[in-house]
């Protein structure tokens, strides 16, 4: 076992909901400034894995029964979601999960909930600057278009000043041109030094955007390695990229 220098280091994660076992020993690392893609079909356990990383299994009457989660070397396996976010995590949830009846600004402020410093307002300004779609801070989030909402969800996560960003299906339901924008944003965040875990159904885009990839199938890792190698793997091509063998 190597010494852990990864930004996010998950080892041997087992998880279940009541009596249904969902994850069977998942290992996954995310390096700073790199994008790791987590691929798999519906029901493979991708979202459950993210819940394990964030410490939200109990909300769904489940638990991570074994394994460890380390954030920047700090063991957070038993910590609350709040402590994990404070340790350096942030998530852009599937379906964005914005607070639709709150304003853009309020959504961003809630993203900074775990921070104790006084620079939240400056960071709100920075987000409005960074994402032109958000320049109407008093607008209710529910009135934004899908792509704008995705940018707000990313901005809200960045308000926690994360070192590792988890993105759950960020391209889902968005027009191709908008998806381009999302992937550009992901690349620029990685360039800023943030480690990114990208959970995607769109395997082609995800492999293209990532350096490492892990493929889940019914709760087990069936492939992992450099994204470029996986993209050439005939099994992956057939199952996830729609390439006939």
């Amino acid at each position, binding site marked *: 076992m190597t010494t852990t220098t990864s930004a996010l280091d998950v080892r041997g994660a087992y998880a279940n909901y009541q009596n249904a076992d969902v994850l069977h020993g998942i290992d996954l690392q995310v390096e700073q400034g790199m994008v790791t893609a987590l691929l798999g079909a519906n029901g493979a356990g991708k979202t459950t894995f993210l819940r394990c990383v*964030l410490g*939200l299994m109990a*909300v769904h009457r489940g638990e991570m029964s074994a394994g460890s989660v380390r954030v920047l070397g700090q063991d957070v396996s038993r910590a609350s*979601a*709040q402590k994990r*976010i*404070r340790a350096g995590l942030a*998530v852009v*949830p599937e379906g964005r*999960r*914005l*607070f*639709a*009846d*709150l304003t853009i600004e*309020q*959504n961003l*402020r*809630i*993203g900074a*909930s*775990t921070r104790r410093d006084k620079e*939240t307002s400056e960071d709100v300004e920075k987000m409005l600057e960074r994402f032109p779609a958000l320049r109407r801070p008093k607008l209710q989030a529910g009135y934004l278009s899908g792509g704008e909402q995705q940018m707000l969800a990313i901005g*809200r*996560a960045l308000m*926690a000043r994360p070192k590792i960003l988890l993105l759950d299906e960020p391209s889902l339901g968005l027009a191709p041109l908008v998806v381009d924008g999302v992937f550009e944003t992901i690349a620029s965040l990685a360039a800023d030094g943030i480690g990114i875990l990208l959970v995607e159904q769109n395997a082609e885009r995800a492999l293209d955007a990532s350096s490492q990839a892990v493929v889940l199938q019914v709760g087990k890792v069936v492939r992992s390695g450099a994204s470029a190698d996986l993209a050439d793997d005939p099994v992956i091509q057939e199952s996830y990229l729609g390439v006939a063998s």
Partner: protein
Amino acid sequence: MKFEQLLLAGIVLGAIYGLIAMGFAIIYKATKIVHFAHGAMLPLGAYLVYTFAVRWDQPWVIALIGASAICAAINVLMQKVFARRMMGRPLFAAIMITFGFEILLRAGMNLIWKGKERPIGDPWGSSTVSLGGVTTPEASLWILGMAAVCVAAIFAFFRWSNLGVQMLGTASDQEAALMCGVPVQRTFAVAWAIAGVLAVVAGVSASLFPRTLGPELLALGMRAFPAAILGGLDSVGGAVVGGMIIGIVEVMVAGYLSESAIFGANFSAVSGYMIMIVVLMVRPYGLFGRKEVARV
């Protein structure tokens, strides 16, 4: 002149109802629980103020702060010990639990204060002021003042404080709030604590004017409940508006219709419920409520 007199009395009663309804609304908004013991917190708060101010001879401000602290603490305790376990359970079970709290509080008050009427010992006594020809007890102005301060404080809390915004976020999507690192349990506790303080202010106000402090204050919570429903159970602003409407209507009905042969003398007591029913037929989620609010 009678109209102005009644209007002022209605506004004062409406302010009291609004304070009570805000308590129902903030708890419902934050935790989706209808807190039926909220009404019992009114006499409790008032009895505590009496104990501090009259029995222990403390200044009124100290009495208010002391009673508020105790009622906030009792509410937080209820939230932590019982209500928290009821989250996500059937609404019916949660309602039954809060009824249980109500019985407990009532029994406790009977034990301590023997269910007697007490003088609340207000500093304004029976002095009156004249407002544009309408003579009113000075206390009624203080009630309006206290209500205005509470409303302003709560709006400022939701508008500017981090915890207030976090509370709104939690009310909108609890899991998303958790994913943002919002201290969700703290927002619950603070909502209940605020309702406890509101109950003290409302209970004291109701003991000043038009009633006296006694066990019949228990009924006032249920009189104010239509105000919360009318405004939309999850709308704190709607609670204030609903309170005003019900308060003014009740006083007007009592003033103009009490001699009517058709309605009879006590029609005012149900007039609030009548309005509530009519409004709910048109807008099932209240004047300012969100559409998905559950039926109670």
